[in-house]
């Protein structure tokens, strides 16, 4: 079930995958662990960049660049602006009660265990070989056709959702007028 990796004769792709995974997990953990919000955001940017690397490794080029543009370009900039707006860089977070930390760690271990057990024991477990249909399935050409034919309605709803989110964000962050 769980194969021990053969480090001595790993291929280049396996080495790249291992390095990317280590970077992803380490920066994700540092995002949680670091005390300064600005450092958290920078670590999260590195984490997202390495996930883009994973997408490139899976040969999903469009996804990789959309991930770069949307997550690093838009979401993280928004978060950085919010952090700077609130001026939270010298944070004095109160000490958490021990039961909270203990509960978080226990839940982390249990969830890892349960989710891995579920995924590993589920039916379509790979038996070493993977099919290669040879057809092009992840170029922008195919994705665009699929998105605008089969998934037309969800696509439109996504645009409506973004519009509503934009209006909501503007409304929420507008300063309320003082009542006279």
């Amino acid at each position, binding site marked *: 079930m769980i194969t021990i990796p053969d480090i001595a004769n790993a291929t280049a792709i396996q080495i790249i995958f291992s390095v990317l995974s280590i970077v992803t997990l380490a920066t*994700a953990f540092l995002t949680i662990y670091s005390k300064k919000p600005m450092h958290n955001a920078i670590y*999260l940017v590195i984490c997202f960049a390495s996930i883009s690397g994973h997408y490139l490794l899976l040969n999903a080029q469009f996804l990789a660049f959309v991930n770069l543009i949307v997550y690093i370009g838009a979401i993280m900039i928004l978060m950085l602006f919010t952090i700077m707006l*609130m001026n939270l860089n010298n944070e004095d977070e109160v000490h958490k009660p021990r039961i909270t930390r203990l509960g978080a760690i226990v839940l982390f271990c249990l969830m890892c265990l349960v989710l891995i057990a579920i995924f590993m024991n589920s039916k379509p477990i790979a038996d070493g070989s993977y099919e*290669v249909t040879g057809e092009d*399935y*992840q170029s922008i050409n195919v994705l665009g056709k*699929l998105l605008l034919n089969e998934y037309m309605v969800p696509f439109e709803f*996504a645009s409506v959702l973004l519009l509503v989110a934009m209006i909501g*964000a503007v409304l929420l962050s507008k300063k309320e007028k003082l009542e006279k």
Partner: protein
Amino acid sequence: MDNILNQIGIENYIFLSVILFCIGVFGVLYRRNAIVVFMSIEIMLNAINLLFAAFSTYHQDAQGQIFVFFSMAVAAAEVAVGLAILVSIFRNMHTIDVGKLKNLKG
């Protein structure tokens, strides 16, 4: 063209995604700062996106990647509204410690 999963294996992607997701859950439970909680949610969403992309390659089918696009759109909307709420909370209460936001507590 060779399938990348022949060299890496889908189970490694599953391990990676599960651990990443659990780090996100850990962050939501462990931290009190609302912005870090948001970041943890982003980590969780990214873990799921990665698993979608891996299984899209596994089945040699583009539909998994379409779902990643939709989940990215929802994540963008969620962050925009969530940060606006956060800014407005900060303006009113001068803190974003989720432990102190208990006005609704009965």
